[in-house]
């Protein structure tokens, strides 16, 4: 257990992961950060992106949107407004969502719509990235 991290990922819709992992890479708001066992206690905000963790040499990916990360030497806890495993069907949906959101951004629209559309773009991109990564 000494060289393992206990990773917990929770979103309001449920807990996604609660497992022992070797390392974690998370999309902090100012760039990706890597966390290995023994990391100093850290609290940070997360942006939209891909959370990657390795179990016995096998990387796995989760698409995240907006969250927080709390790291302690042997524990990493992630809170996300939305988090999901990405599969082929999800990718299709993300592509459509990305298309639609980009269309909205292409037109001149009200400010609040832009905000929503940008969030949708970020979320869809996170899913597509996670899919790319999980396929190597």
């Amino acid at each position, binding site marked *: 257990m000494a060289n393992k991290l206990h990773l917990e990922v*929770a979103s*309001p819709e449920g*807990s996604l992961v609660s497992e022992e992992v070797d390392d974690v890479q998370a999309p902090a708001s100012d760039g990706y950060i890597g966390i290995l066992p023994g990391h*100093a*206690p850290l609290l*940070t*905000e997360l942006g939209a992106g891909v959370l990657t963790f390795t179990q016995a040499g096998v990387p796995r990916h989760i698409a995240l949107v907006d969250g*927080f990360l709390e790291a302690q030497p042997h524990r990493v806890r992630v809170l996300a407004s939305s988090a999901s495993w990405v599969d082929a069907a999800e990718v299709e949906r993300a592509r459509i969502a990305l298309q639609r959101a980009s269309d909205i951004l292409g037109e001149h629209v009200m400010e609040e719509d832009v905000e929503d559309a940008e969030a949708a773009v970020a979320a869809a991109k996170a899913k597509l990235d996670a899919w790319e990564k999980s396929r190597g």
Partner: protein
Amino acid sequence: MPSLIDFRRRIRSVKNTQQITKAMKMVAAAKLRRAQQQAVQSRPYAHLLGDMLASVAAAGAEDCDHPLLAQRTEKKILLVFLAGEKGLCGAFNGQLFREGQAFLKAHAGKDISFEFVGRKGRDFFRRRKVKEAGEWTNVLVSVKFQTARDLAKKLADGFSAGEYDAVYTIYSEFRSALSQTPIAKRLLPLKPHNEDEQPGMREEFIFAQPAETMLARLLPRYLEIALYQAMLESAASEHASRMTAMDAATRNAGEMVDRLTLTLNRKRQAAITTEIIEVVSGAAAAS
């Protein structure tokens, strides 16, 4: 005097009603299970969020003046009223309305506006001419986190802008499938400190962002999850209440059918007896 045909009709009608109440009970039970499951699934998130807030607060962000923590004299109050979407659920809605009216009485003289979640609350208080801030109907049929998010944003914006000095909510607390109680709670200003937290247990954290910034990001999330959980509890309570009510209705219908069948049989027997007596006495007269 109702005839035998009338009795048969009556029995058939009661049986039909019984089938409907039975079906409604099953549907409510299935929906209750789903709402409960959702509530259970949201718990780890809420728990973690509470922990993180405590960490941030412990790191010295305690005395920062975030707009969502601002204490003001309560003059303008917003009441988020969560009630059922539909009727036929026993005393569920009625209890909530009573709680709502008690709240109005307790805060008489203040400027109270209502934010309705669920159709029934709106219908009830609209007839009583209260001030309406907005309504969210058909959202409790299947509770989505997005709804809670949108509502939380509206509340946070209104509160920060000084439109309201406090935000309360009335919803039904889900104790068990058999017991739900309406409660009134204050949502804003927030008080994010866990009372059961032991000081000294916390480690010193490195903050990638200043603690104040973290707090500013965490607090709205806290409001969101509080609302989401309130909505889930309210939905679960509604389904549980309906399940119990429909169960009772099904049982009552069963009893009614038994009683009617008994009366019907008695009448039928009496008719046969009369007929036999007529035949026998006719035969006796003839001989």
